[in-house]
């Protein structure tokens, strides 16, 4: 007999009970992202409100946190200097380091693992790149030096991933060892704990590395970049929605797409305007968007595509959600884990290069402590909304969390606290991290928790 499963007509008479996936409305509202259900803008807003009440608040806490930090520091900093354009641009630039490190940490957190070595690996990556462009010295072109740093650190990450995945040792132990190892190697390659690698900005390849954070786009170029980004995002959103409608699938309402696009454009315009204000003196004008902002956007875009639109990303989420299910579905767990650790370390190396560019090559432990960097990276990711328990979070969350951490770190340094500043630079992010973890745990326990059974 032909057991052709596909040929049975759907309307075949059958008195069987249909399985209704509709839930009680409250539970559905809490768990189903509003944009996949809503057919109209009004319904979207109502659903969104329900979703937030249900404990699934997405990026809302980190945005509220940023507003709170801005208000508090504006009030308590001397001369209310926190929100000056020059300070805000400085915060953007400083935060990009934490953003990139948080994005690196995100992929490993999504697996339900942790990488405690990102800070030390990042600094080694930075030192590698800075050393390789030295003249006299290796004198490599800037791109080769950066590539070497990414590949070298990626290989170290792959090693950590291999030990974790193949020997089944908890990643926290493996990467703690990696952190200590790299911290030691760092002192050796720097030639002392207070060493540094200066760049000669008159040499082209060194100038590029220096400019990664210090270089500025002119305001005109800034506007052009913004226009290109917004247009690309708009076209992408529009085409995807159109394709879904063509296939008669639920697409987000056009009004919602327009509002989101307008928000992106507005935020981008605010940043460009802010960066275009002269923050130097009347004589030496300093204005323009730092290179590092579009660089971070590219990293964000790359990670977002990798995690949400490729098989690799899907498997990362699946392993974080239910490793056994992924294994039974034929996912090769060790390969995904090793690649994740490798990509995490490579991304961290980029963060380390930005760090060096930000501090003019000062890799000494006075300016950046690898232990503090990793704390900030994990804190940024978790504050942004990446779950410590795996399976939940996005690269964007790392970026938002990085901005919040950068704001706090810089705000504290503005306070002129003297001897109290160093402890506070640890205590405040630590407190924020604990707060974020509490939100993570409580939201899992509440109605919106993804791991509720």
């Amino acid at each position, binding site marked *: 007999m032909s057991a052709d499963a596909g040929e049975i007509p759907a309307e075949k008479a059958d008195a069987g009970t249909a399985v209704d996936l509709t839930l009680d409305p409250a539970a559905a509202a809490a768990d189903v992202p509003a944009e996949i259900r809503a057919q109209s803008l009004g319904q979207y807003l109502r659903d969104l409100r329900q979703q937030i009440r249900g404990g699934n608040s997405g990026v809302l806490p980190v945005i509220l946190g940023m507003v709170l930090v801005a208000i508090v520091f504006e009030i308590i900093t001397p001369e209310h200097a926190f929100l000056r354009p020059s300070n805000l641009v400085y915060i953007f630039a400083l935060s990009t380091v934490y953003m990139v490190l948080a994005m690196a940490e995100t992929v490993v957190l999504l697996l339900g693992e942790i990488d405690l070595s990102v800070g030390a690996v990042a600094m080694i990556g930075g030192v590698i790149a800075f050393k390789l462009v030295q003249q006299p010295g290796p004198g490599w072109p800037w791109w080769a030096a950066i590539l070497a740093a990414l590949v070298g650190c990626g290989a170290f990450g792959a090693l950590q991933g291999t030990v974790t995945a193949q020997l089944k040792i908890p990643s926290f132990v493996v990467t703690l060892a990696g952190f200590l190892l790299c911290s030691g190697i760092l002192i050796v390659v720097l030639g002392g704990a207070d060493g540094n690698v200066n760049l000669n900005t008159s040499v082209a390849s060194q100038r590029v590395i220096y400019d990664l954070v210090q270089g500025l786009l002119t305001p005109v170029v800034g506007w052009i970049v913004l226009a290109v980004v917004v247009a690309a995002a708009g076209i992408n959103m529009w085409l995807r929605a159109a394709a879904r409608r063509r296939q008669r699938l639920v697409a987000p309402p056009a009004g919602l797409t327009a509002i989101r696009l307008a928000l992106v454009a507005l935020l981008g315009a605010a940043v460009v305007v802010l960066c275009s204000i002269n923050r130097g003196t009347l004589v030496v004008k300093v204005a323009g968007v730092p290179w590092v902002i579009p660089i971070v956007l590219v990293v964000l875009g790359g990670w977002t595509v990798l995690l949400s639109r490729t098989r690799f990303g899907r498997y990362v989420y*699946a392993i974080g959600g239910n490793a056994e*299910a992924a294994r039974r579905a*034929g996912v090769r767990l060790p390969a995904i884990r090793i690649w994740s650790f490798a990509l995490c370390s490579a991304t961290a190396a980029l963060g380390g290069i930005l760090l060096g560019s930000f501090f003019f090559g000062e890799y000494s432990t006075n300016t950046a402590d690898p232990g503090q960097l990793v704390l900030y990276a994990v804190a940024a990711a978790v504050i942004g909304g990446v779950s410590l328990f795996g399976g939940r979070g996005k690269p964007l969350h790392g970026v938002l969390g990085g901005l919040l951490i950068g704001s706090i770190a810089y705000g504290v340094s503005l306070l002129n606290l003297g001897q109290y500043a160093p402890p506070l630079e640890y205590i405040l992010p630590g407190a924020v991290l604990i707060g974020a973890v509490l939100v993570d745990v409580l939201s899992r326990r509440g109605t919106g928790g993804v791991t509720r059974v």
Partner: protein
Amino acid sequence: MTETSEAPSGASRAEDGVEPLLKLRGIDKHFGPVQALYGVNLDLPAGQVTGLCGDNGAGKSVLTRCIAGAHQPDHGQISFEGRPVHIRSTRDAAALGIETVYQDLALADNLDIVQNMFLGRERLRRGLLDEDSMEKQAGETLSTLRVTTVRSIRQPVASLSGGQRQAVAVAKAVMWNSKVVLLDEPTAALGVVQTRTVLDLIERLRDRGLAVMVISHNLNDVFEVADRIAVLYLGRMVAEGPAADFDRQSVVEYMTTGTFSGRPFEPAASATGEA
């Protein structure tokens, strides 16, 4: 296909001598010194539900895993559609069209219904996930099984109840033009209403012409859906035949003692197509 006269109507049972879709003969399996299966024979005919019963430790799970490719039998032969096959991995099983719905469901809570149904077999378009085509296919499969999705098949599996999750797991198993579906304790964790929906779902799989094997402790469920019953006792197949040859008491006795009224199982005269 033109030969629709053979459409599975429930009447064309395999007792008439038709080769069963999946045939196991003399399956032995041991783990170290422990012999788990002794020369087990089992037929899974197309368009029929076979209920596999047995007490804890009787070897139900080992037998299931041998079919699903998670274990390899030490001896014995598995024939699929009349030709001998070697199932060395779950991928081999999937390639033949054998799918397993595990007791603990094997769904990732944080992924949505579509993502779970395609996990490990995602469709790509220009190197990226083709979400739209996967969503369409998943929706069609769910609706042919009459699993209606009023809200969205894009909701995370975490938001589903036990019966709904079971339905998704079953739909996942049948989406790949599968021919054999093994269900391990499909109703174990479910309430009355949800059990009903899952049993209906199993009947729908049979009506689609699939060979279904249900492993269950719950004899009510077994007698409700099974066309054939097979009983394992301490690694041996002690009884196998049409459900009509059994009643509750006999199944319980075979499960607990391997015999019924002190006598081994004897197939009814017309029951088996071959010796």
